[in-house]
């Protein structure tokens, strides 16, 4: 048949497409589908039990103690997201604007701001754990050195400050990313449009709000969506700095840790619960996919071709 003839070109295309599709299928599609499958079964350790359909989902959402843990972790994810949107993306935007306007030292800072992004989360986590050490950590020593002894806290050791400290470390680590994306967006704005804006308005804030911000909408879409996904998938940094229990007392617990603990067990209670863990993973995945999807469509509407 004509349509099925194998051509050299066709072979080439197949050679290029098949490996990535296989990798994707093996490491992304297969785990998602199996997790979905696992979530419908009762599990006894690593042994698959009865088919229970939606019972695991009902448990993690509505049955105690799961329901409280889920709510607690989910609320923390919301806090992480909200604070990162303001602190990480807000400061990132200001940094990008400063770099774009070529404030003194822009060349140096362009590199400096992005440097932490290339560091591994493991390194960042351990280094900041040292910085936050209540006795010899850099943070408290600095506070004491400048006479602010009363502000020196056991940052990671008390419920009121632990999550905040973790979020700030994350913001420090990733601030270069929104900066870079925003800066790229700003650099795409034609110079004459900025000139026209300067002829029309003399308030920098007005130009920023009415001209620059709407014109970098595509950058904002990327930054917002990735921040959202990152906030609800947050795992490595709290795992390294606060441990799998989200200590102290679950004050840094997030969906990622909670899922990991449930599915694979923790040091104190060595039980593995694939059923409830998979249900959590599926719910988290669906929540992220649906919200990110709708939000992307919504944000795209603001975007303007330059």
């Amino acid at each position, binding site marked *: 048949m004509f349509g099925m003839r194998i051509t050299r070109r066709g072979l080439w295309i197949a050679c290029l497409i098949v490996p990535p599709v296989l990798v994707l299928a093996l490491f992304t599609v297969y785990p998602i589908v199996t997790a979905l499958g696992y979530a419908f079964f009762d599990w006894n350790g690593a042994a698959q039990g009865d088919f229970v359909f939606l019972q695991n989902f009902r448990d993690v959402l509505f049955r105690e103690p799961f329901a409280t843990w889920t709510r607690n972790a989910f609320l923390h994810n919301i806090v992480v997201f909200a604070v990162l949107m303001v602190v990480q993306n807000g400061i990132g935007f200001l940094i990008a604007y400063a770099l774009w306007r070529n404030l003194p030292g822009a060349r140096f800072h362009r590199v400096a701001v992005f440097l932490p992004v290339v560091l591994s989360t493991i390194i960042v986590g351990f280094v900041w754990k040292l910085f936050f050490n209540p006795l010899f950590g850099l943070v408290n020593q600095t506070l004491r050195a400048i006479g602010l002894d009363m502000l020196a806290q056991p940052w990671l050791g008390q419920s009121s400050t632990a999550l905040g400290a973790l979020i700030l470390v994350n913001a420090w680590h990733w601030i270069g990313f929104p900066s870079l994306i925003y800066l790229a967006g700003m650099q795409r704005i*034609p110079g*004459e*449009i900025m*000139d*026209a*804006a*300067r*002829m*029309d*308005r*003399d308030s920098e804030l007005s130009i920023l709000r*009415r*001209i620059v911000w*709407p*014109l970098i*909408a595509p950058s904002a879409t990327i930054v917002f969506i990735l921040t959202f996904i990152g906030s609800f998938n947050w795992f490595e940094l709290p795992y390294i700095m606060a441990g799998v229990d989200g200590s102290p007392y679950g004050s840094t617990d997030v969906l990622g840790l909670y899922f990991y603990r449930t599915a694979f067990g923790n040091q104190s209670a060595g039980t593995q619960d694939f059923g409830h863990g998979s249900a959590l993973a599926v719910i988290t995945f669906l929540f992220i996919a649906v919200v990110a999807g709708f939000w992307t469509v919504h944000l795209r509407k603001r975007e*303007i*071709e*330059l």
Partner: protein
Amino acid sequence: MATLSLDKVSKRFGETEVLHGIDLEIADQEFVVFVGPSGCGKSTLLRLIAGLEPISGGTLRVNDADMTRVPPARRDIAMVFQSYALYPHMDVYENMAFGVRILGLTKDEIDGRVHEAARMLQLEPLLKRKPRELSGGQRQRVAIGRAITRKPKVFLLDEPLSNLDAALRSQVRLEIARLHREIGGTMIYVTHDQIEAMTLADKIVVMNEGRIEQVGSPRELYETPANAFVGTFIGSPKMTLVTARREGRRFSLSDGGAIEADAPADAKGDVMLGMRPDALTLTRDRTAEGFEAETVYTEYLGNEAYAYVRLADGTMAAVAVPPNEDYGPDEPVRVQARSGMLHFFDPESGRRLRHGSLADERGDFNRVEQARR
């Protein structure tokens, strides 16, 4: 109502000075065109007047008020950009209203101004469109409308026609001339197109390498260019420059023949002759007096034609020939000059030689013009 006055205005980018002490007076309601080759500083000068670039030295005054350090939005100056620079996320109405909002008018006054400008430019049906939904010509009109709604003292236009196709260009050119008549205002227009300059300007400022070469009406620049640069820059095809040796009324090229012409008394020894195409004639008579030359090619334009010939010293000269005369390539010819239509420049400095002879050069030119008719 605005006069502009530039006093020793200079601009440096780092170590490089790109504008060297520009002095210029612009009268109220005047249409001034800056022309010059690319890199001559004409756009930079416009940006200094707009306030988009800081002035490195000297003073800029608008109506005697010092504007040298005033931010662009507070100078009461509007600008039309080469790329139009419309705000892509705003509709036509918002594009035109955005700059007006800074003036502290009421909503109704702003609305009135936008509609007035839209009516003047036939933009009313397009007010709700976004810039990307407009054609090039429509965008251009929005850019002009945006400037008009401000009712500024001074309009700046930076090569506003260069992104339009040829047919639209001459149409918008007429439009701009009409707008200037209707709304008045002082206009400064930057272009490298001398047809735009000649047709629009009350006053042309010819610039070269960061300096003003000459300021004058289109007629003054064409008829009495201050130097060889202005002579060659204004007029198309270009004025031909040759350096000839003067003996009385005879100007000869070394082993290349000679022409006869009346010349100012200070043209002594070696003189640079500026010959426009219509100041020259061709003859095939090889015994005739004139510069020896060889034809290279002919440009036939219907109502006129230009023969390009190579003189003995290698210079290419454009000569206006009757369109019904046909010259092939490589024909030996003689180039003759119409008396009184040549320009004489100092071969060293390129400056116009004008002293000691024709008391009134204009009068002389007009006499020749009449004689030709």
